[in-house]
């Protein structure tokens, strides 16, 4: 504290007054810390009970079986063995990876392309921003139920349109071949707004001189895109991709509301299976084992994402 040196310029006088000032300093430090903890205590309690405790318990539960009557029973690797022996386990991971992959292609490329186009337009930008973001504001259940009706192979809107223009109707959610793609379309429609706007904001930070310089060097549209736009937005693209992977691997609402996992288990995702183990079979131990595996799978992506945002942010 600068005040102490200001008050004690004379070295000879310091030893006589030092103990007193020390004591005041210490007292102030204690009260400061107490105050700070006073401010923190609510958050500490809430984090301890609903964040840190569940983390520890979750790991422990993966190796236990609980029945809520007697104490939890340690079962070693049994839960994991049950998971690996269940054919649905492999199917769920495969489906989820398929969903994530499709979602990356459709839900990553398209928002970026849209943002590129929007960035070039000079008129009605406000309208576009509002309109593309509107679906994001709708509750996911609303979107899922609405699209479930759209996809209905009989009276649903999409097949009605197809029939009107003379095309054959598609099975959408009713066929194992098209069900996952149908879900990806819904998920993309509902969430591309935020990605598009984030890309748009990033594109707008690119200094115009870079484009001018590139043009003077004789670069055409594609080359400008490849050598100016993409490198400049690389960071945003990377973290958005990571965020998207982490989010889409946890997909639940769409399969739960729209297909229940079918047809023929083609839309059973990791989270849907986790939910089944916990809340249909009431096997919390195995569900926790599944959660642990999910964490291990995604932890790497999340850690990378965090590191990148924190170093830059």
């Amino acid at each position, binding site marked *: 504290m600068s005040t102490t040196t200001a008050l004690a310029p004379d070295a000879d006088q310091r030893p006589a007054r030092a103990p007193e000032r020390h004591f005041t300093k210490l*007292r*102030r430090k204690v*009260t*400061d810390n*107490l*105050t700070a*903890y*006073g*401010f923190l*205590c*609510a958050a500490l*309690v809430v984090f301890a009970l609903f964040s840190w405790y569940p983390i520890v318990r979750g790991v422990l539960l993966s190796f236990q079986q609980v*029945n*809520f*009557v*007697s104490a939890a029973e340690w079962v070693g690797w049994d839960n994991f063995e*049950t998971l690996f*022996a*269940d*054919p*649905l386990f492999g199917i769920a991971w495969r489906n989820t990876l398929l969903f994530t992959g499709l979602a990356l292609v459709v839900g990553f490329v398209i928002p970026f392309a849209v943002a590129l186009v929007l960035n070039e337009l000079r008129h009605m930008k406000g309208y576009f921003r509002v309109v593309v973001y509107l679906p994001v504001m709708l509750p996911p259940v609303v979107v899922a139920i609405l699209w479930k009706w759209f996809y*209905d*192979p*009989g009276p649903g809107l999409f097949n009605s349109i197809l029939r009107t223009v003379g095309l054959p109707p598609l*099975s959408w*959610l*009713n*066929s*194992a071949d098209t069900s996952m793609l149908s879900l990806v379309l819904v998920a993309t429609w509902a969430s591309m707004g935020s990605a598009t706007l984030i890309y748009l904001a990033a594109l707008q930070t690119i200094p115009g001189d870079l484009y001018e310089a590139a043009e003077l060097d004789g670069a055409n549209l594609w080359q400008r895109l490849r050598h100016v736009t993409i490198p400049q937005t690389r960071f945003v693209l990377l973290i958005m991709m990571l965020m998207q992977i982490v989010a889409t691997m946890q997909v639940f609402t769409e399969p739960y509301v729209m*297909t*229940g*996992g*079918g*047809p*023929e*288990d083609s839309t059973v995702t990791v989270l849907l299976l986790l939910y089944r183990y916990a*809340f*249909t*079979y*009431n096997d*919390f131990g195995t569900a926790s084992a599944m959660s642990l595996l999910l964490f291990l799978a995604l932890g790497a992506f999340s850690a990378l994402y965090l590191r990148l945002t924190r170093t830059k942010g």
Partner: protein
Amino acid sequence: MNTPTLRRRSLGLLLVTGLGLTVAACGESTDDGAGEGGKVAITVNGQPPKTQPFERKIFDEDVAEFERTHKNIDIQPREGFMDPKTFSTKLAGGQLEDVYYVFLTDPANLISRKQAADVTDYVKDVPHYDEIQPTLKEIFTRDGKVYGLPTANYSMGLLYNRKLFTEAGLDPDSPPSTWEEVREAAKKITALGNNKIGFAEYSKNNQGGWHYTSWLYSVGGNVAKQDGDKWVADFNNDKGKQVAQYLHDMRWADNTMGSKQLLVIEDVQRMMGAGQLGMYLAAPDNVPALVNQFKGDYANYGLAPMPGGNGTLIGGEGYMLNPKATPEKIKAGLQWISWKYLNPDRMESDLKRYADQKQPIGLPASPPAGASDIWTGPLREQQATLKTKYATVPVENYQPFVDGLADLDKKIEPPNAQQVYAALDNVMQGVLTNKDANIDDLLAAAETKVNAALAQVK
């Protein structure tokens, strides 16, 4: 300076928080059930919700009557039946009722998990216990110990629309008794046009698997069989294929099942209630639902026994007791179950009050409890006589079902039924949504999954 204020404020904050924590800690909920003056208080569920006013009134009247005649027991009713989603929470949070409802598919798992009380020592005091059908009692027994009581039972049959039958030129009093006849009838009804469908099946939410099992039983097949002390899948054979092929043909060759699939109970009931559906597999308890919820008319529905003449799937309900219940609570709980659901002395009054309110009596099913098909021997006959006496629905519409039931082999659901049904759902979905479905592949894939599910049976 402001140090005293600072300190006071922060200490104050901590003190308040500390107090808050302590007060909250004291607010723990305990339920030891030792009511006033030696009374035993037990919580029971199975109370119908307010959206079913008649059933709710009956239940509440019964509670009052029971408390009047059993002054030392206090019943605290709770709405709801069995929901696997909430069961564990309730048990974990100490809120599971002392007497709780189960479907007949539940006891096996609950007993394995030790989530039901062992009531072997108390069951001998339950009157008429010996006259309950043994197959049903088996479901609640493991290694000689009893864990609960069955209270209702239903069998699957063929529910058909008599009116559509007449319109299509079929005889409503002579319903199909073989699968070939079902196929023919379906064709005739679909031919009526105007969006009418001959036959419908479920294929979602495990209901497809449940019905596939019924079909299998009807042709004399099995879903699972015991191999030593393990269970293995037993449907990847001629019979399983026959059923799958049959459904596939009705869907694609005959086109009598409609283009919308992945149906669940409510979808099919809605079609039946709206007069758009000819037949579907159902238990008799569907009929009141069709009338009350989906605006159907009793006169229009008939029940036939499961075609095929070999066997049928039975299901039902019962009650088990909280594993943490004290002996007093167990005794009181068993008294309640026996008095309300398994009481031949109240059979007549039960049926009468339903009949007085023009509620359906005469259906081969409960409610009311008095009409439950759980008895054997003289009690069963007594029940049949009373049901005829107080019948309020055209009993003759259901006569074929009742007559045929005696000849059918009544089989219970396979172990770990929900997981098995989930796997079999895929077979149904495959044949009903994919014209080029490869039945051998579907059955083989389902077999792997069913074996995995059965391997978990303890």
